């Protein structure tokens, strides 16, 4: 430009040529800077714009991580899987990308004919970014849908919980919902602990999660469940339940209650009567409570194992007289009171201890509060705060108060383990760890006497049916036949039967409580009292599980003589 301007010989030149060129260059530089700035501003602006765009990562209100989050596998005490995660494809649609809704509906229904046409059409039309069509399908169906080639239809891999043991450990495990969140049992407990947080943070993915080890032994659990199912048909019972506990660590080895449900189909849990009778059922325990009363009285020092009690006449309270079921009508020694399950004798024993001391002893064994346990399905027991004379008398043989079978097994464990209360747990725990949690409720001497009494009842008393099946395993326990209240009266035809036991009593390891609800006689020669059903069931159970738990049979009678208290030898 400057060169051209020079060529035309301007008439007036105020500036020198060099200066003119200089200012021209400066102007060009300014324009260039402006141009570059605009360029940068454009690029920067676009960057900010891109930064502002929020891509929708959620799937119907949940983050993608939460959908794909997995749960840790649950193992039994021997490492056998009780719950695992499987990856399953779930079908979703992006309605705003679907071109021909009608075509998509028709094609999808060829593979998934159970979807309603109307519902599917509504689901696929509209401008939404993500809708589920059907969750948790099989890989075969995924293949077929992919082959249809519908635009805007795709799959996402979800984690689904699977319980290989089906019904067997249903009440322990609980179940999960379609979003893989625990809704019952130990699954729910795990969520309340830590996994929910991990899932939310998106960390709970893949196989990296450490498995959760339970205290349950699946072999024992299977035998227990098998025996309970057998009891349902054998005695035409309406329900049966059982729980087995390691008396030193408080670990629950097996826990089952039938009727139960299949955790793989959580909807089956909603059927009536499938509740967990061990933790969330409370019952009048009946005569199995006599063991508690006698233990309390012996421990208080008010009675001794050599004492005699007058059971010739019923105990009168105003208009009521409490008498015995199979009365001996004579003076009974303490072991006889236990052996013949004498109501009168038990009342006298409780009275010797004093009703307030008796009530305090029940509190010491935590009968008036919920058991500290992992399962969320728990009920508060009903034990009167203060006992009247009559109330204390009936409570001494297990009527007029309601507790869960879990309370009973925990109490029995404390009675035979040397007198230490240990709260049950579903997680693995060793003895050293448990010892820090021990609460002394009985003296070891009383515990020794209780072992003897329980074994005596198996040898000579109502537990003999049990002992016949479990020969050699030195098992012993107490029967309890609790009459049910029908229309405000105790009914003698409808009963709830219990058998609370421990084995091997020369060196006890396990406590068991078995319950059979409204059993009928197996055959005309048998009865409906607890020894016939809950008792024999326990016997068969011990016979099968004792070898699994490393308890060898021993027919040596010296073992039984050895546990007789010195005062009675």
């Amino acid at each position, binding site marked *: 430009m400057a060169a051209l301007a020079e060529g035309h010989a301007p008439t007036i030149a105020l500036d020198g040529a060099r200066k003119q060129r200089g200012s021209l260059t400066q102007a060009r530089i300014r324009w260039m800077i402006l141009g570059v700035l605009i360029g940068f501003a454009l690029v920067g602006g676009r960057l900010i714009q891109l930064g502002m765009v929020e891509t929708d990562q959620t799937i119907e209100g949940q983050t993608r991580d939460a959908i794909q989050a997995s749960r840790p596998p649950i193992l039994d005490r021997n490492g056998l899987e009780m719950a695992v995660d*499987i*990856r399953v494809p779930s079908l979703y649609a992006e309605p705003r990308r679907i071109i021909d809704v009608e075509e998509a509906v028709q094609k999808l229904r060829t593979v998934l004919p159970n979807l309603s046409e109307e519902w599917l059409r509504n689901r696929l039309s509209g401008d939404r970014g993500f809708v589920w069509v059907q969750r948790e399908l099989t890989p075969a169906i995924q293949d077929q849908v992919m082959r249809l080639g519908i635009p805007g239809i795709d799959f996402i*891999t979800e984690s689904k919980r699977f319980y290989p043991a089906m019904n067997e450990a249903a009440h322990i495990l609980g179940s999960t919902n379609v979003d893989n969140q625990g809704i019952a049992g130990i699954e729910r407990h795990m969520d309340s602990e830590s996994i929910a947080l991990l899932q939310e943070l998106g960390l709970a993915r893949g196989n990296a999660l450490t498995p959760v080890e339970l205290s349950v032994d699946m072999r024992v659990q*299977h035998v227990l*469940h098998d025996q309970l199912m057998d009891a349902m048909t054998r005695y035409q019972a309406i329900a049966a339940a059982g729980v087995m506990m390691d008396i030193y660590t408080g670990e629950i080895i097996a826990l089952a209650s039938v009727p139960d449900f299949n955790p793989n189909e959580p909807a089956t849990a909603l059927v009536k009567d499938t509740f967990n009778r061990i933790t969330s059922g409370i019952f009048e325990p009946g005569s199995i409570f006599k063991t508690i009363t006698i233990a309390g009285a012996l421990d208080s020092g008010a009675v001794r194992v050599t004492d005699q009690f007058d059971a010739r006449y019923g105990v009168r309270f105003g208009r009521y007289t409490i008498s015995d079921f199979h009365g001996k009508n004579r003076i009974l020694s303490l072991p006889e009171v236990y052996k013949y399950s004498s109501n009168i004798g038990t009342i006298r024993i409780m009275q010797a201890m004093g009703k307030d001391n008796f009530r305090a002893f029940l509190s010491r064994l935590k009968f008036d509060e919920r058991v500290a346990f992992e399962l969320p399905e728990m009920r508060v027991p009903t034990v009167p705060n203060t006992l009247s004379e009559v109330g204390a008398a009936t409570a001494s043989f297990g009527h007029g108060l309601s507790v869960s079978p879990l309370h009973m097994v925990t109490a029995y464990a404390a009675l035979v383990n040397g007198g230490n209360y240990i709260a049950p747990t579903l997680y693995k725990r060793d003895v050293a760890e448990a010892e820090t949690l021990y609460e002394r409720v009985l003296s070891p001497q009383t515990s020794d006497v209780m072992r003897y009494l329980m074994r005596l009842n198996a040898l000579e008393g109502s537990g003999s049916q049990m002992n016949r099946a479990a020969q050699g395993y030195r098992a012993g326990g107490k029967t309890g036949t609790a009459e049910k209240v029908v229309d405000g009266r105790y009914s003698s035809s409808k009963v709830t039967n219990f058998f609370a036991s421990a084995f091997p009593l020369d060196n006890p390891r396990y406590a068991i409580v078995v319950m059979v609800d409204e059993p009928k006689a197996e055959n005309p020669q048998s009865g409906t009292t607890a020894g016939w059903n809950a008792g024999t069931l326990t016997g068969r159970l011990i016979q099968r599980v004792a*070898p699994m738990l490393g308890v060898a049979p021993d027919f040596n009678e010296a073992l039984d003589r050895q546990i007789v208290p010195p005062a009675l030898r």
Partner: protein
Amino acid sequence: MIRSINIFLIILSIVMLASVYALKFSIEGTAAERTALTARIAEQEGQLSLLKADWAVLNQPGHIDPIVRRHEAELEIAQVKQEQFGSFAGLPMRPAKPDSAAMNALFEAIAQGIDPIDAILELEGIE
């Protein structure tokens, strides 16, 4: 001087351009490979989870028990009874000492050609 530097710089920038693009494409290739591998791993993990679940089912006592029951008669198996258990303490003690004098007498008799078994066999009428 300046010209040769310029030429050198131009060639250098062309080489750099080419190498940067080559790098970019190779990284894209690697990324695609990685995505493919991730997808394959995810797929195989899915299959693995199914296999593990299968294995867990097959291993359940509740699955094995009915199979055992079905084949009880054929395999001649039954539930173990208490009497079938034994312990080392239950084994009888070894006899105090072998009767070495009687053994010596026996060996000497055999060496001389008199087998006491022969007498028994003859008595029974067997050869």
